[in-house]
């Protein structure tokens, strides 16, 4: 078997916000982070950051991944900014990056098939389930994938593969009141439980024939209730009606399955 080519994070296709928000006051930024990461995690981060220029690499915080740091905080870390807020933003980003590196190292050691993802496969040839199971094929039968995800009976232990599976009703709509009938759809992701038996942060996701994005936490990939519809191909182009109205996907009636499976081997 040849050498597997793996995705390099430097070439990541992490989606950028369509409409970057202006920098809010510092209090708003911290509140935004608190909402995203939770009170305890932010409290620990703030205590560490306020303690001075200490090395934050050992900080154990499992609630927020680099891709999930709110835009406000990312803006605080912009190099052209100075002051305690900018420094706080940089420390948070460094801390999250260090934690991600540790989790990736755990994944590589415990279940290497889930270390990032293989790059030789055409994005159009596999979907979310093909990535979640690292089979790199198109697994588009909802009932079969629900059954596969549900069959996990493992425990939250180092090296176990944690699968998140969501199914829901889906329809397309425009802002001016046009909409399609509902269909039933799903999304699924998976990642490896780390050496401390904590959830993974190095979870990748793809939607249909669209590109792979990530990393993030597993729950961070739960599809939003409403987002812009895009073409079901690697170009991921925003979709519109013939008269130019943006099309949005609306998801409702979510059901979630979270199960642990054995690592499938290298």
């Amino acid at each position, binding site marked *: 078997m040849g050498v597997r080519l793996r995705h390099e994070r430097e070439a990541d296709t992490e989606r950028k916000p369509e409409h970057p928000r202006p920098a809010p006051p510092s209090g708003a930024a911290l509140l935004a982070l608190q909402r995203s990461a939770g009170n305890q995690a932010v409290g620990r981060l703030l205590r560490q950051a306020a303690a001075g220029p200490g090395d934050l690499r050992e900080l154990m915080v499992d609630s927020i991944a680099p891709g999930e740091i709110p835009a406000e905080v990312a803006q605080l870390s912009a190099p052209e900014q100075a002051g305690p807020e900018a420094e706080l933003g940089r420390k948070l980003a460094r801390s999250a990056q260090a934690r991600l590196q540790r989790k990736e190292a755990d994944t590589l050691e415990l279940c290497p098939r889930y270390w990032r993802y293989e790059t030789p496969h055409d994005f159009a040839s596999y979907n979310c389930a093909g990535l979640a199971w690292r089979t790199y094929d198109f697994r*588009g039968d909802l009932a079969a994938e629900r059954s596969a995800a549900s069959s996990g009976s493992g425990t939250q232990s180092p090296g176990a593969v944690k699968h998140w599976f969501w199914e829901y009703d*889906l329809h397309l709509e425009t802002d001016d009141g046009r909409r399609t009938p509902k269909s039933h*759809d*799903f999304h699924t992701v998976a990642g490896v439980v780390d050496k401390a038996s904590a959830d993974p942060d190095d979870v990748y996701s793809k939607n249909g024939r669209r590109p792979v994005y990530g990393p993030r936490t597993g729950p961070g990939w739960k599809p939003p209730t409403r987002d812009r*519809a895009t073409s079901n191909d690697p170009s991921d182009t925003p979709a519109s009606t*013939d008269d130019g109205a943006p099309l949005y996907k609306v998801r409702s009636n979510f059901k979630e399955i979270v199960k642990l499976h054995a690592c499938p081997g290298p």
Partner: protein
Amino acid sequence: MKLPDDAVRCRAGDHLAVRDGDGWQLFAVEDFVAARRLVTLLRDDEPVELVDELPDGVAPAYEGPQLLLTAYARRFESPEAASAALAAGELGEGVPGVLRPLAGFPSASTQVLR
């Protein structure tokens, strides 16, 4: 678009003899086509436009290459009998515009008549 691994290799203008129970059915290959599902955009329950289905995880409809066929009702005892009828112009009436996935014509049970 990739040809399905197990599907018969044919060209537009060929005829396909397909095993159907104890007999063989004949199809004329008109074209290879790609198909995609469109869904109806409604305003107040009134259809106003068709747009591409844009699914998340589920497989899009009409995956892979499709065959546009003329299907003949007459059944034959063997591919050889179908070939003889074809040569004699005795296929009988056919139904044009039949769409079937190429993957539904496995080489193991399909013979190409040229």
